[in-house]
């Protein structure tokens, strides 16, 4: 026996015993085996789906069938090459975003697009075609991806890019892992003038004012995001803060490097009763008050600007074992804000427990067939799970369907297939490409079983 064969004999599948896995919302929860290895090729044959750092909220990275094996990519995390001429960085799919930032920020580079947490993998960023505060200026992450090495259903490895196997490439951007295992990703990094962010904060008394300011700000600022209080009753309902930012110029920034902020860890899962609406109502008042105080410009470090929530690791534990969901939708804004108003009214009527509301300005649609953003306004609403949540999501989805919007699969756990089909005319095209590369539907997830009707 060679050592290689011996190694196969020692741990034939590199798989964990069955464990409970969930998304970031801790709902739903499902049993799965996680197969992980530094050499992804050893574990891709077992997995019906790839899973990264599990920062999608719902069931996107969960197995279709209880106990199925998932390919965990997190050990395949090497950086493979970087060309300072073109800025193109190539890395293995499990490479976490935090590693890239830690290594490249001091050298004057930053990823062109980042979601609201740095604890995601490159594979997950491609599979969800993530967007961020820079969507109106930079588009989704996929727009900066120059090539993806994908292992498709029959085991072939295909290098797809905007020039080669474009259909497969487009289906993979935002394809939620259903076209195959992403093994490597190459994308263009962005040069930055300094490692600091110049931030300006403004507050507004209601959502319409916030939305128009958000839109205005997008013309001048590359990064914008708004926070709104959708929990306190009127007149406080809808008050909000607008955060605008850009990279500071060298003369505006301190000459030292920003220190990565210290993060706190929560020791345990809190009990379900811990987080109460009254606490969040008070938090929202304080947050608004603080935003009023810091109004104006200041230089901040990019991590606290882009990843305020990362300051507390495992913050999802405060919701308790019941878990929570994030409902994220985008509503077009060209034809007025009627649907937006209906959405807000409905939230008020239902007294929906929106513990966190983040509003973003979306720019042009990217090339990913199922990629989420389209021109309009995106609402991301965190709500603790209860027996009312399904009803709330159904009601909001009615409004989104009528308003010509859509929901974000990376956050979703509760949308019904009928709703999804009515908001996604693009689905047929995606399923056609998927069937072409994976006729037996080898790749499937709890999400694809729920929304696309795949057999579990």
């Amino acid at each position, binding site marked *: 026996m060679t050592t290689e064969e011996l190694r196969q004999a020692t*741990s034939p599948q590199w798989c964990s*015993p069955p464990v409970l896995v969930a998304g970031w919302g801790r709902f739903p929860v499902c049993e799965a085996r996680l197969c992980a290895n530094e050499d992804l090729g050893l574990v891709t044959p077992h997995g019906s789906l790839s899973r990264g750092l599990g920062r999608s909220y719902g069931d996107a990275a969960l197995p279709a069938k209880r106990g199925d094996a998932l390919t965990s990519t997190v050990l395949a995390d090497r950086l493979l090459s970087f060309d300072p001429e073109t800025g193109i960085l190539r890395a293995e799919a499990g490479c976490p975003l935090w590693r890239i930032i830690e290594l490249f920020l001091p050298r004057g580079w930053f990823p062109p697009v980042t979601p609201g947490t740095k604890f995601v993998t490159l594979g997950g960023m491609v599979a969800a075609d993530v967007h961020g505060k820079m969507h109106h200026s930079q588009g989704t992450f996929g727009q900066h991806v120059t090539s993806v090495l994908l292992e498709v259903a029959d085991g072939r490895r295909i290098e797809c890019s905007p020039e080669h196997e474009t259909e497969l490439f487009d289906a993979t951007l935002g394809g939620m892992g259903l076209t195959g295992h992403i093994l490597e990703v190459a994308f263009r990094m962005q040069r930055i003038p300094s490692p600091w962010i110049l931030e300006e904060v403004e507050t507004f008394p209601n959502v319409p004012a916030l939305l128009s300011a958000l839109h205005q700000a997008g013309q001048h600022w590359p990064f914008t995001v708004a926070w709104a209080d959708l929990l306190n009753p009127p007149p406080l309902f809808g008050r909000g803060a607008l955060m605008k930012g850009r990279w500071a110029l060298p003369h505006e920034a301190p000459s030292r490097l920003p220190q990565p902020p210290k993060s706190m860890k929560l020791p345990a899962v809190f009990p379900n009763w811990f987080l109460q609406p009254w606490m969040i109502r008070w938090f929202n008042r304080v947050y608004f008050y603080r935003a009023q105080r810091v109004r104006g410009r200041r230089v901040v470090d990019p991590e606290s600007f882009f990843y305020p929530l990362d300051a507390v690791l495992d913050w999802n534990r405060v919701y308790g074992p019941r878990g929570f969901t994030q409902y994220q939708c985008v509503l077009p804004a060209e034809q007025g804000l009627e649907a937006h108003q209906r959405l807000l009214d409905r939230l008020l009527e239902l007294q929906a427990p929106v513990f966190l509301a983040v509003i973003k300005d979306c720019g042009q649609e990217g090339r990913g067939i199922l990629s989420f953003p389209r021109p309009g306004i995106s609402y991301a609403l965190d709500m603790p799970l209860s027996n009312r949540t399904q009803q709330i999501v159904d009601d909001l989805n009615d409004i989104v369907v009528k308003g010509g919007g859509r929901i974000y699969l990376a956050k979703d756990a509760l949308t019904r297939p009928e709703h999804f089909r009515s908001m996604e005319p693009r689905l047929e095209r995606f399923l056609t490409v998927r069937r072409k590369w994976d006729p037996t539907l080898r790749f499937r997830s709890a999400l694809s079983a729920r929304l696309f009707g795949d057999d579990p």
Partner: protein
Amino acid sequence: MKVIFLGATRGMGRALARELARRGHSLFLLGRSERELEKSARDLELHGAPAPVGYARCDLGQPELFEGALAAAEAALARADTVVVTAGLFATQEELEANAELAAELLQVNFTNTILFCEAARRRLLARGGGTLCVFSSVAGERGRKPVVLYGAAKGGLTRYLEGLDHRYYAQGLRVVTVKPGFVRTSMTIGLKPPPFAGEPDRVAKTVVNAIERGRTVVYAPPIWACIMAVVRRLPRFVMRKVNF
């Protein structure tokens, strides 16, 4: 430091090599697959190791390769002062009892050949006036225990060897660092159910680099395992016969 590293491609070795790279130390990699070594070398350069990070083939199953590999490393690094060994094999006691060939291979690799490699490295370090030899043993070598009888025997022997080396050559400038990891989450342990106090490779890496830089002799990683093993070492025999760890 100028470090010759056997086992940087995976697990704790990968994390440790990256931590050394971040702190700007020079590296030369030894391992059994050129393809993996090449990728790890590029990764380490991007982590801050002075380029180029070189590599050479060296398989713990093939002791005849040791001298050549170490010579190549010394030629590339010019005055290497540190040798790190994280390479090793693991298999469960059940697997080893069921497969005599595997058991023989594991004992050979983890004990005899690792020691032969250390001997070759020790000679080279002493020839240039001393240096650091950092080797990963295991808490499994601290006490004969039901789930790690064979693996633990090899690691126990390795620990004893490293202890002797320290006594014998300390005066001549050899600094031996014996690392005793507890349970750490790597692909080596993916099939096992993690006990409480399971460690992460990145944390282990920081602990170990600090130990090397401060010249500590024995390091438990994560450090809590020092306390756990202090208890386990004192448990009476009748208890060890009963419990299953």
